[in-house]
């Protein structure tokens, strides 16, 4: 096929989502030439962002019109090396986005910093529990950068996104009302916390009774109209319950399509090329450099080569890894030998929860936003002593009410028939009177969990699908049992009429069940080229003009949502790229 070679550019981003927009903000502020290639469209002023169609649960949630189109590209799954992977024909387990803004268009806005110990997790656990305490198959490693080194980027990111919350630790001083386990912050959150929900009131009372310290979840749902340091504005959150899986029509959910792309598109050195599907990263093996990318224009069907000085992979976790495997940049991970790095340490999020039902309390689940939640952090990360527990990691536990959407968020007490008059009555009796108490748990890497290229199945362009060899292993199963017991104690303390026991997460890993969109790993960061794909500056070890950003660089997944550190890492990458473009070298 004829491929048209385009004019050379300085920096090309593959994927126009959250991380690309933040890094491009830094670059274009210094007038560095940037092109962002995004396979989807700009949904501003479309049905997705207009009333009343924005509130259509069937279209955006059930049918997933904002998500990656599985008919074009999906993933295959097997639970271990001995099985043949099959394509997940309609994936429910996580929801990658498509379009300007990527998955950050349809996020809930739950915006955490991770623990101070997370970037140095292996060192921290070895110091506290001894070197032998970490099982050989648990391939956790340090990031190669410390929390203190990225704190100012967290601070910057929170101001750009107008994060609402209550500080729990200001410069080492624990603050009443915030998260006492929080990593030290230089500043209070830029906005006050969201108002508490009724579920939050009940959860607070119950957890305080048990001696815990509940606090409001840090939120990218703006409680007030907000103007960020760039002069970009957020509207006021309407608590409509249409955050996750929807784009906020009130511009009240901090997202790249509201705060970043409209500003970037006015900058002279920035270009966004929509409906362009990148096929290949072009790699000169002898020179150990990438030379650009090849893409297909989804409007005309024509193919183009875009030469560039620097290529940044800023697509979803899965695609970042797949691009490297297809271009054969770096050594693919081999679970039998433990050698190789690309595709290593693939992780997800260990979720479990129960529902508490109250006859006389009005929960009104529809009066909520994606992050208007109340949380405890006592059982997250290494905030509690793991001696003798048989697992590492943990999660936050929260009153999980983000919406009252009636198709997917309704719940009835266990034992209710699945249909019929009794089912209808149970829905009428309990719809407004229950909420979920959930543990949002970490997922640490396991030697046998990884991704590679599927040998059989291909996408709509004839390229191999990414294959997950993946299951929930002993560490996460035990952790889930532990967290589920804690949930049950809290559920009991709420005084709910009905509080069924929490079912801990068990295998096999189920593609049919949504478990957050927080898949991580595959192109992990670290200080040692033998055990990481990119350096602590997110620079590829085998091609210094190639950078990778996204949750694919996390060496493990914490019990916190991944967005906060990603914002910090993406801003820092932008500064690093400015440095690199001025003087190309190993950073």
């Amino acid at each position, binding site marked *: 096929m004829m491929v048209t070679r385009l004019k050379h550019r300085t920096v090309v981003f593959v994927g126009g989502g959250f991380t690309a927009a933040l890094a491009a903000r830094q670059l274009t502020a210094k007038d560095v030439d940037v092109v962002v290639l995004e396979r989807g469209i700009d949904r501003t002023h479309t049905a997705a962002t207009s009333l009343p169609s924005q509130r*259509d649960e069937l279209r955006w949630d059930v049918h997933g019109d904002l998500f990656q189109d*599985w008919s074009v590209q999906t993933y295959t799954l097997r639970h271990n090396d001995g099985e043949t992977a099959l394509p997940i024909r309609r994936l429910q387990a996580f929801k990658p986005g498509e379009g300007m803004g990527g998955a950050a268009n349809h996020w809930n806005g739950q915006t955490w910093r991770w623990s101070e110990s997370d970037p140095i997790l292996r060192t921290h656990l070895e110091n506290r529990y001894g070197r032998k305490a970490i099982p050989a198959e648990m391939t956790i490693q340090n990031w190669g950068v410390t929390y203190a080194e990225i704190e100012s980027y967290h601070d910057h990111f929170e101001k750009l996104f107008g994060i609402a919350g209550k500080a729990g630790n200001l410069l080492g001083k624990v603050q009443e009302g915030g998260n006492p386990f929080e990593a030290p912050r230089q500043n209070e959150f830029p906005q006050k916390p969201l108002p508490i929900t009724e579920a939050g009131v009940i959860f607070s009372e119950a957890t305080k009774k048990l001696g815990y310290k509940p606090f409001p979840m840090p939120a990218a749902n703006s409680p007030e109209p907000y103007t960020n340091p760039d002069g970009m504005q957020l509207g006021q959150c309407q608590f409509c319950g249409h955050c996750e899986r929807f784009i906020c029509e009130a511009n009240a959910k901090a997202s790249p399509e509201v705060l970043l792309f409209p500003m970037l598109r006015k900058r002279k050195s920035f270009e966004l090329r929509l409906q362009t599907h990148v096929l290949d990263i072009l790699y000169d093996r002898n020179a150990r450099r990438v030379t650009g990318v090849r893409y297909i224009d989804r409007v005309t069907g024509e193919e183009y080569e875009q030469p560039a000085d620097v290529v940044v992979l800023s697509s979803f976790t899965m695609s970042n890894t797949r691009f490297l495997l297809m271009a054969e940049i770096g050594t693919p991970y081999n679970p039998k030998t433990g050698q190789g790095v690309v595709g290593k340490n693939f992780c997800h999020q260990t979720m479990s929860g129960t529902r508490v039902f109250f006859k006389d309390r009005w929960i009104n689940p529809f009066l909520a936003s994606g992050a208007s939640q109340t949380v405890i952090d006592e059982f997250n990360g290494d905030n509690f002593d793991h001696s003798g527990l048989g697992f590492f990691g943990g999660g936050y536990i929260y009153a999980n009410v983000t919406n009252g959407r009636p198709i997917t968020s309704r719940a009835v007490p266990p034992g209710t028939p*699945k249909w019929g008059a009794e089912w209808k009555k149970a829905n009428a009796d309990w719809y407004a009177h229950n909420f979920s108490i959930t543990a949002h748990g970490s997922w640490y890497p396991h030697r046998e969990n990884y991704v590679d290229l599927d040998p059989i199945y291909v996408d709509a362009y004839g390229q191999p699908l990414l294959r997950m060899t993946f299951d929930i292993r002993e560490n996460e199963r035990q952790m889930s049992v532990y967290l589920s017991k804690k949930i049950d104690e809290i559920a009991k303390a709420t005084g709910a009429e009905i509080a069924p026991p929490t079912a801990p997460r068990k295998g096999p890993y189920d593609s049919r069940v949504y478990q957050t969109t927080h898949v991580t790993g595959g192109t992990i960061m670290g200080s040692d080229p033998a055990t990481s794909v990119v350096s602590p500056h997110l620079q590829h070890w085998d091609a210094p003009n190639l950078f990778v950003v996204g949750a694919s660089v996390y060496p493990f997944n914490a019990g916190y949502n991944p967005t906060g550190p990603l914002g910090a890492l993406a801003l820092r990458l932008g500064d690093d790229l400015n440095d690199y473009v001025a003087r190309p070298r190993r950073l």
Partner: protein
Amino acid sequence: MTNDRSDKTFHPNRRGFLGVAAATGAASLAPGVLMGTAGLAEASESAPSQCVDASASTIASTLPSPLPGYLSLGPSEAGFVEAMVNVMCPADALTPGGVDCGLAAYIDRQLAGGFGKGARLYMRGPWREGKPELGYQLPLTPEQYFKTGLSAADAACRERNGAAFTELDESSANQFLHEIAGGKVTDERIQLASWFNELVYPLFEQACFADPVYGGNVGKVFWKAIGYPGLPAVHSQDMVDFRGKPFPGAADPKSIADFA
């Protein structure tokens, strides 16, 4: 049971149906498409609404008619679906029967539309049976799968019960659906439990609770039943004012059509 004239003209078998069953003592769930509609319509005219309590018929009389006609379903398929949704959603104080709620119309429109034709579904081979956790693995579009399963379920029903599904009384039909959902009814080529639980049942729930613009949940009847206030949901003050209290908007939900 109250029936207005325009309603009967389009689908005489529907609202009259439960009344007919009670009046004739047949207690059959078969809708008119299979049995001939004229007699049923006539029977319903004079039938007292013995099996439906007063509040149910009040709800039915105030609701708009479901979308008339089918785009995807043929007569016998429609018969099965109508009988099924009337069993899964019997007329009671909360809602009229499933057909009157638009549930059959919803399912038909979904099968005829993008979802039914396999939109957003990865449809490349090779095709192999897999563990349940890997999800759907057949080379059929959802519309084809729905109908293949329907036909297999009806064949299994004749074998087990000596009668077509539409000929069962309400309690036997309900029991048969539970047997399918519980994996007790098998077919050589279709796993009927996963067909029902992963395709049919989600369509049923969506039919009840999706925006009425899609053909189900007519008159927002299910939203009213549970107290979901619908759209556009501008709650920044409500969030504070109605924390822990009944929300007045729940009594009068708004849907997409209310803003059209």
